[in-house]
């Protein structure tokens, strides 16, 4: 099923221990919106690795490309979105690797849901309003396991609902008869139907109230312990990620600006944008502090300036930031598991002094 030759590992720049094998590897993924001469570059050479059993948090402001990354990696990007380059390597259960972007339509269809399942933002609109929950759970199962009988599939659907804490008699319900929280649970149950290796959750709890958000996420994390799938959790809520994610990737203007273990990002954010993002959420522990927003607004992606996209808003901006685009690399502190795209860290030698905020 593998459709490509392994490229050299140096292409994807990602730090961290390599003991656990990557289950999903995004390499240099680029996405444009709009055709013709002047497309908007929404993703620029994004690389990201999800290791088996890991929860990877993807954080960033609205419009930074988080969802586009999820859609592009699964080839669900609607027009005028266009993948202009990159690879998405998925390691199968048998250890075979395949580039999702190079699969034929039939192969892609077979891999979807079986290997990668997605839970989308809109809990309210993700279910087909005219079909019963049962039918929608079953058709996905039967599409991949045509030899399974209808009765068996129905049994499996009931089991899935119980898994997310919904009683099996709701199988006969239509989506409009369920609450928002129940619908999102049904979506999660549906996503787990074929025991996928990777579950991508695109702001799965945005439309729900805070209590429900917590319940659902705790449930997903519990299921992950039991079933052993890996999770990509996309959200703008960094404090939530700090709690549930193993690693966090921070995105800004279509690029990943920092990846590090969750605890490191929380305690010692290296990129000024990560620091700003954390400063705009109430801290989880310790004394209360003044919340600070990040001044300015995200750049217009259709009119790229040279240099670091965060430069106009950055409190530590230097001359080099306005002319040269920083690339993802190790910090001067030589932290194993961290990559940062910031001139503060990459252009200084180890002995020089860093601004307080990013040098803790």
């Amino acid at each position: 099923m593998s459709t490509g030759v392994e490229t050299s590992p140096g292409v994807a720049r990602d730090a961290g221990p390599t003991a656990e094998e990557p289950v999903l590897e995004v390499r240099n993924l680029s996405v444009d919106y709009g055709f013709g001469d002047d497309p908007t570059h929404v993703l620029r050479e994004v690389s990201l690795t999800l290791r088996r059993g890991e929860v990877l948090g993807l954080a960033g402001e609205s419009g930074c490309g988080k969802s586009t990354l999820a859609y592009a990696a699964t080839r669900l990007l609607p027009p005028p979105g266009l993948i202009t380059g990159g690879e998405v390597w998925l390691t199968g259960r048998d250890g075979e690797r395949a580039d999702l972007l190079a699969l034929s339509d039939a192969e892609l269809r077979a891999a979807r849901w079986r290997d990668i399942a997605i839970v989308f933002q809109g809990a309210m609109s993700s279910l087909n309003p005219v079909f019963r929950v049962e039918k929608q759970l079953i058709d996905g199962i039967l599409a991949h396991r045509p030899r399974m009988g209808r009765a068996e599939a129905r049994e499996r659907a009931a089991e899935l609902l119980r898994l997310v804490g919904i009683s099996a008699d709701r199988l006969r319900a239509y989506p409009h008869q369920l609450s928002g929280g129940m619908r999102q649970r049904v979506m999660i149950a549906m996503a787990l139907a074929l025991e996928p290796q990777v579950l991508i959750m695109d702001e799965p709890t945005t439309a729900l109230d805070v209590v429900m958000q917590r319940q659902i996420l705790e449930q997903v994390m519990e299921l992950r312990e039991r079933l052993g799938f890996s999770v990509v959790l996309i959200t703008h809520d960094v404090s939530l990620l700090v709690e549930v994610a193993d690693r966090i990737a921070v995105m800004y203007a279509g690029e990943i600006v920092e990846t590090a273990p969750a605890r490191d990002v929380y305690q010692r954010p290296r990129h000024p944008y990560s620091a700003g993002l954390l400063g705009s959420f109430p801290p989880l522990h310790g004394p209360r502090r003044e919340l600070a927003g990040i001044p300015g607004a995200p750049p217009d992606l259709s009119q790229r300036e040279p240099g670091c996209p965060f430069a106009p808003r950055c409190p530590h901006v230097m001359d080099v930031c306005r002319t040269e685009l920083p690339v993802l690399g190790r910090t001067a502190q030589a932290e194993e598991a961290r990559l940062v795209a910031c001139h503060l860290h990459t252009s200084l030698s180890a002995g020089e002094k860093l601004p307080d905020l990013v040098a803790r």
Partner: protein
Amino acid sequence: MRFLLRRVVFYALTAWAAITINFFIPRMLPGDPVTALLGRMQGRIDSNAEHSLRVLFGLDQDTSMWQQYLDYWGLLLRGDLGLSFTHFPTPVADIVSQSLPWTVGLVGVATIIAFVIGSLIGTFLGWRRGTWADGLLPVATFFQAVPYFWLGLITIAVLSVNLGWFPSSGSYDRGLVPAFSGEFIGSVVYYGFLPALTVVLSSVAGWVLGMRNMMVTVSSEDYVTVAHAKGLPERQVMLGYAARNAVLPQVSSFALSLGFVVGGTLIMEMVFSYQGIGYTLYQAVSTHDYPLMQGCFLVITLSVLVANMVADLAYALLDPRTRTEDR
């Protein structure tokens, strides 16, 4: 069941209102049938006969409008629609029941065909939006914009006058005796083909455009993306998820258009001299034939109501959200 009962009561009330209005409107038209009849006969009837005609039509009695209204209901409930003035003394019920099957058969079948073909084409065009398929849209818009009578005349000119493939008027070969024989039915189909073709051609575009636009809207719904993400076969996503939801508004306009089948085909029946209810109504209006007019209006009103009711029920069947819970 409560849902059904509520709908039935609603439609009964609507029918009462419609029949009542139907009763009063012809009586407000200027002119009177006797004068019209005398005028049509162009002096062949002695003007002294005017009074006897009035007696004959029952127009001499000075009954109040209210009394007439009550009498009307009494007769209506017995299925008596009165006698036609122009086709005197044929009962209106006979005239209506003779012309109705022709209209319903021809236009009904044509409407169903147009709906099915149009929705299928629309499904396909909507699914393949942004490709060469969009090039078919101007063609659809053209057929939607063409005035019906012109389309009818052109088809007659080309297919029956020049090529001689189809008869230009009538509903069956007058040499045949109406019977349930293969020959007669074949003749009806042969004569009906051309008018049906024009009805389909002029209405199919509306279904295509409506369905295509709904498909485009529905295709960007989250549940369609989810269906793709689930790895369902494309056909299943297109028909089961996108088209299944896109067809809902189509179904209600289809039921409404079935209601207008009976009343809205006047031009077709005139262009093709087809003996349907539209043509009968036209004659009735131009000769102040109150009973026939009322009979036609009644049938048209009732058919629109029935179609509406069918639309309601079909919608309830297709869309679970409109069903009220019976607990």
